[in-house]
């Protein structure tokens, strides 16, 4: 049989190629921003949501913990970032009702020595840190609960966060229910003339998404990621194999919440003005939708799901919202809001035909595509099943623990598959 062998480096170069093409595309879009405002906006939103989706997948899909607290952590991240990055000059305008708390103004004044990009990164990290601390402490009582109860507890936490943020007592810090505005966007505002105003509005969220998702993938592929999967598969067995349940669940919970909060901060920057209402349970459900559509247990699925859902909701389906007249005859149904009907129908189709999500629980792999093409070409019978991403193939037959007597046949090393 004349079969080509797929070498690991083919995958590497292909990925590199795609990355460069994507960067090129983003760069071009940035330069032509004015003509493609809609596309830019949708891509930004997709990038932010892909980060949240991946971190939710880490918790729900990989560790099997049914947690519905994402909106709460996003709110923590969003508000922290917003509070810290609203320009000092605009602060009084934003906190118009009661005025900003003096200590907060003091903090902001101290921080204003930092150049804006640094301030933003700092704010994002602080938001993540605060969320992580919360996650750590709530985790202690809550993570012992079993699935449904965990869901309710985290849901409750999420709502509590929202209530606390909008409470009148915190008016001078979070501006209570009036919301925060004048949050800086992704593009740079003062670059000393080197870069045009607004540059980086696509590349910055892209790199943010790249780094956070890369980190999560690294964790998943490490021994700890395997421990998470073990917990998902069978908690009792995992414990018997020496995996401390509380410690590992907390680890997953904290990592997920830190990244979710940072994505919340990015969301604040995307929306430019936020209010607590935006971080209700509905937001969590939106993300859960993305995760489930993409596939629980698949990182590439979450990213794909984020893009597909965001594009569908905010772009492609806009067509269905405006009335359409063909040859004097008005097409029925097409009016504001109809796109949600279409969206729901598409959703049901996906759920019916891709029961385990678009990617199931397998990841995107060049090798997988290569095999799929080859199978189609050769017409080989395939079973419709999961593609298990193969780890390193077994090494050349390892030296047996009891050595063979001399004269036994030697087996050569196996080729890389």
């Amino acid at each position, binding site marked *: 049989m004349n079969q080509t062998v797929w070498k690991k480096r083919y995958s590497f170069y292909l990925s590199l190629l795609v990355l460069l093409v994507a960067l090129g595309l983003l760069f071009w879009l940035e330069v032509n921003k004015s003509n493609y405002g809609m596309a830019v906006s949708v891509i930004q939103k997709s990038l932010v949501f892909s980060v949240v989706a991946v971190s939710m997948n880490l918790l729900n899909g990989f560790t099997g913990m049914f947690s519905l607290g994402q909106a709460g952590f996003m709110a923590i991240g969003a508000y922290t970032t917003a509070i810290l990055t609203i320009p000092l000059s605009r602060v009084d305008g934003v906190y118009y009702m009661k005025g900003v708390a003096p200590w907060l103004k003091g903090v902001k004044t101290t921080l204003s020595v930092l150049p804006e990009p640094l301030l933003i990164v700092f704010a994002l990290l602080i938001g993540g840190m605060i969320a992580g601390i919360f996650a750590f402490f709530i985790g202690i009582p809550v993570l012992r609960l079993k699935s449904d109860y965990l869901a309710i507890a985290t849901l409750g936490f999420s709502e509590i966060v929202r209530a606390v943020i909008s409470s009148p007592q915190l008016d001078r810090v979070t501006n209570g229910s009036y919301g925060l505005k004048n949050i800086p966007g992704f593009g740079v505002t003062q670059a000393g003339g080197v870069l045009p105003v607004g540059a980086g509005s696509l590349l910055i969220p892209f790199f943010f998404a790249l780094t956070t998702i890369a980190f999560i993938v690294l964790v998943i592929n490490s021994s700890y990621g395997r421990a998470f*999967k073990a917990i998902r598969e*069978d908690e009792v067995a995992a414990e018997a194999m020496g995996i401390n*349940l509380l410690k590992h669940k907390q680890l997953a919970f904290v990592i997920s919440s830190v990244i979710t909060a940072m994505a919340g901060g990015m969301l604040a920057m995307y929306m430019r003005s936020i209010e607590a209402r935006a971080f209700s349970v509905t937001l969590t459900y939106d993300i859960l939708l993305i995760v489930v559509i993409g596939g629980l247990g698949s990182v590439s699925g979450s990213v794909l799901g984020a893009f597909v859902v965001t594009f569908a909701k905010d772009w492609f389906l806009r067509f269905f919202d405006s009335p359409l007249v063909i040859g004097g005859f008005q097409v029925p149904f097409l009016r504001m809001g109809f796109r949600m009907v279409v969206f729901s129908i598409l959703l049901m189709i996906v759920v019916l035909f891709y029961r385990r999500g678009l990617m199931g629980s397998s990841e995107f792999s060049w090798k997988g595509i290569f095999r799929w093409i080859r199978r189609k070409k050769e017409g080989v019978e395939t079973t419709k099943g999961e593609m298990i991403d193969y780890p390193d*193939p077994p090494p050349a037959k390892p030296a047996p*623990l009891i050595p063979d007597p001399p004269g036994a046949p030697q087996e050569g090393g196996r080729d890389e598959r």
Partner: protein
Amino acid sequence: MQFGGVVALNNLTMRIDPGEIVALIGPNGAGKTTAFNAITGVYPPTNGFVELEGKIIQQGFPKGKMKRLYAGENAGKYTKSLSLTPDRITKKGVARTFQNIRLFKNLTVFENVLIAHHTNMKAGVFQAAFGMNRKEEEDMRKRSWELLEMVDLSDVGLEKADNLPYGKQRHLEIARALATKPRLLLLDEPAAGMNPQETQEMGDFIRDIRERFSLTILIIEHHMNLVMDISDRIYVLDFGRQIAEGTPAEIQKNPEVIAAYLGVEQ
């Protein structure tokens, strides 16, 4: 070991010396798996203790029991309650398999064994994520393949664990337990569902791993030929009480054991 009003284990006292293979037998429902669960921390013992190599690893002390019961130099040692979670017990060197096989079904055979090495890994999350523990990781992988080789599963290493036939699943469970580097291995019905030849092979295998890994083994079994063949000593349970203890020869002749298993002649 008491659950509410049900006394599942009543005064079970076992002593296992290093390197021994001890069997725990008895009719169904006698409390054998409960004993395993009490030892490994799935249930904290309500009354009694488990001692491993001189150190107490589990201890239950019902309220109201007077502390002066244990006087002398060991007084403090036996009067404090201690219940460790199963993962801590495993870290102390006690591994177990399950009666109704608890494998990580959707993961590959290789991953099942590899995960069991996680507990002995020294690296933290960030070190592991950023690849700073490459040597450790390689060692873990190599050892996993070796273990699979030993139970004859290296050719199906990349199959989903759920797809294996029953007998191989049992082998995988044992390989997985071995990966945690135990000193004491608790096997819960390792030969369940096997035909006589497979049972014989399992017996050879158990003796083999005892040699190779310097293990001490406690085994629950119903296949009497296997039990009589490989055990050094046997404890017999019936309705939670220990009714006999001794070498295989002694147990076979013990009238109470015969009564428990076969019923009393009228």
